[in-house]
């Protein structure tokens, strides 16, 4: 039934050609470029072997960027995975009135573009004129220079991205929460199970597939979404403390015009994320429940 016939594989051909051409061919080319010193237009493409990789792996910049990338992921898992998970649980199983209002209010920020969100937060965090500094002023605390202090800048940018994507993930998790069979929860309530037990033993396992999806997406997109605020607000600064892997790839290619070094960064990023997806498939997927 499911065997691929000759005719079948021909139907397959156009799609796979498009896929190969626009997806894997650039990937291969990227790998090739990573062995060269080149600025993308010069006729002189100098072959440098593994020099780009060597330079990256030996630089303190690489360590910094990896640490930043991991910290972004941690912060965004809190803002865009744990928080919406908790909120969606409260909205679907604890709160009895006003769910719709909350749903709308919490989803609203997702409608703004990241660029607009970045500008709004730039004002909120302004250390002298912004509302955040006013509030801190009530407690006689001087506002930190959010975008110019190492680590604070990661938190500040994460809140921007977190605020924007919170609502989207919330809706997704909410859908999973409300589809947990009512009878199961009612049965547990009859047995005098606490809310905590219901969450831990029924809801978490029942929503694990949706949670896994949001978890993986948050990690993968954490890499990309922070690009906009970084490029608009800090350009990787201060002293590269807000640069993550995708930003340095952009920076080397389109600010320094060093395509080879950029491509090498890209290859390393692909390897790291391939390892993550492998781990997900092999280990994390084990505990996930899929209805079908």
């Amino acid at each position, binding site marked *: 039934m499911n065997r691929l016939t000759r*005719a079948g594989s021909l139907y397959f051909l*156009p799609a796979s050609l498009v896929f190969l051409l626009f997806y894997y061919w650039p990937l291969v080319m990227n790998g090739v470029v990573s062995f060269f010193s080149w600025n993308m*237009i010069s006729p002189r493409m100098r072959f440098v072997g593994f020099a780009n990789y060597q330079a990256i792996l030996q630089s303190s910049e690489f360590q910094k960027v990896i640490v930043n990338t991991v910290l972004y992921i941690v912060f965004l898992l809190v803002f865009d995975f744990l928080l919406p998970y908790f909120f969606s649980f409260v909205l679907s199983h604890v709160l009895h009135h006003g769910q719709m209002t909350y749903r709308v209010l919490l989803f609203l920020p997702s409608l703004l573009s990241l660029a607009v969100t970045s500008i709004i937060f730039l004002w909120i965090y302004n250390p002298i004129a912004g509302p955040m500094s006013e509030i801190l002023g009530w407690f006689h605390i001087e506002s930190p220079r959010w975008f110019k202090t190492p680590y604070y800048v990661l938190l500040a940018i994460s809140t921007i991205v977190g605020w924007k994507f919170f609502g989207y993930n919330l809706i997704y998790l909410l859908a999973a929460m409300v589809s947990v069979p009512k009878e199961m929860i009612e049965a547990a309530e009859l047995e005098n199970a606490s809310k905590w037990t219901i969450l831990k033993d029924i809801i978490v396992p029942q929503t694990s597939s949706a949670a896994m999806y949001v978890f993986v997406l948050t990690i993968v997109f954490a890499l990309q979404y922070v690009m906009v605020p970084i490029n608009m607000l800090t350009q990787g600064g201060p002293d590269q403390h807000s640069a993550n892997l995708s930003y340095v790839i952009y920076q080397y290619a389109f600010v320094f015009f060093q395509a080879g070094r950029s491509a090498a960064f890209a290859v390393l990023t692909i390897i790291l994320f391939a390892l993550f997806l492998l781990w997900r498939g092999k280990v994390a997927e084990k505990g996930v429940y899929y209805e079908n």
Partner: protein
Amino acid sequence: MEFKKALCCAAAGVLAVAAVSGCGSDNKKQAPAQSGQKVTIEYWHVASDSFGGKMVRELVKDFNEKHPNIEVKEKFNPDMYKGLTQNLQAAIASNQTPDVVQMGWDFLYYADANFKHDDINKIFEKAGKKDFVKETYADNIAKLAQTADGVQVGVPYSLSVPVLYYNPELFQKAGLDASKPPKTWDEVHAYAKKIKAATGKPAFFMQEYADTWTNQACVESNGGTMLVKKDGKWQAGFDTPEGHYAYQMLADMVKDGSALHATNEEGFQAYTSGNLAMVCTTIGKRANFEKSSKFKVSMTSFPAFGNKEVKVPAGGNFLMILSKDEAKQKAAAEFIAYLESAESLYKWDTGTGYLPPRKGMDTYGPYKKLMDENANVKNAMATLPHVVPWVSFPGNNGLQCEQVLIDARDVIMGGTKSAKDALHEAAQKINSLLQG
């Protein structure tokens, strides 16, 4: 039958793919223009609608009307010179090179090495405008668009200089005379301390764009230099007591709370909202500041270090001719001569706030009148003889060198390292990048 149908579908699909992918390589042929025919040239600029874009279109329209045999097509490139250079890389790779481009000063060496251009003096000569460069610009201005080897990469077009803006109301609040703005950096520091004592808020901000333009102004005004040639090789020149002091002075102000270390936009917001007394940034911000502030935006020239001569790097852009075809080159030269005429420059500079690079503009004509009426413009024009080239690092890693200096500035202003240590490390890094 089934199989044949499938084969047809597949073939159609393959064709579609080929057609799609073929688009990319469908190069615009640069057909040589015959004499007598209309020559079309493309002009790339970075002037957004809020920053001179309207004026660009007006000038281009006027030029096209006056020159029936030439048609200039203007194209706006977002994200300033970085954005324009990115687009230019792509255009050159696909053989669609524009003819005239605005190029940022700090891209001088990169543009010279990577964007093929014929000798601009020869192009002007062929177009019947021999000695155009010599006759149009003062020596120090023409040199801005030259490499150290004397190659004239382009011609100066838009000039900007760093100046000191202040808020007279905050000066008065601190008991300072608003008609006597600080003239030296020691005075800036003293004023800032007084204002901080009176308002409780930092009182000075120096722009922190993703470049080190104003920092170079400090280093050079303190008698230092950014780049030196030793034994025929370029090296970082700022790792000297003069350079260290120029950076440390700012860091000390941030440390004692009299100056603000923040992103550029935050610093500007703090100034325009009336919370911060002094901002050191480009003359090009004047119109924007005046529009978004409730107080009277006042301005003075870039402060000095004691009685040393002030030296400020030129900001803005120069024009490059990239066309290879002779007819197009001639048209480009004609267009540039039009843009650089006293009349066009007056329009352009009143529309943007840039300063005119053409010599003699301060002695006759409408621009002279503008200077007489507006003290801010007169002040800024007075700095033109002190203008030096904005450092552009040579070599393949040139553009990365500036990033090293931006990072060093963050480290120094953040107070994690002294200027001496941070600049020494930066110099070593830049020296190795310059070798590579």
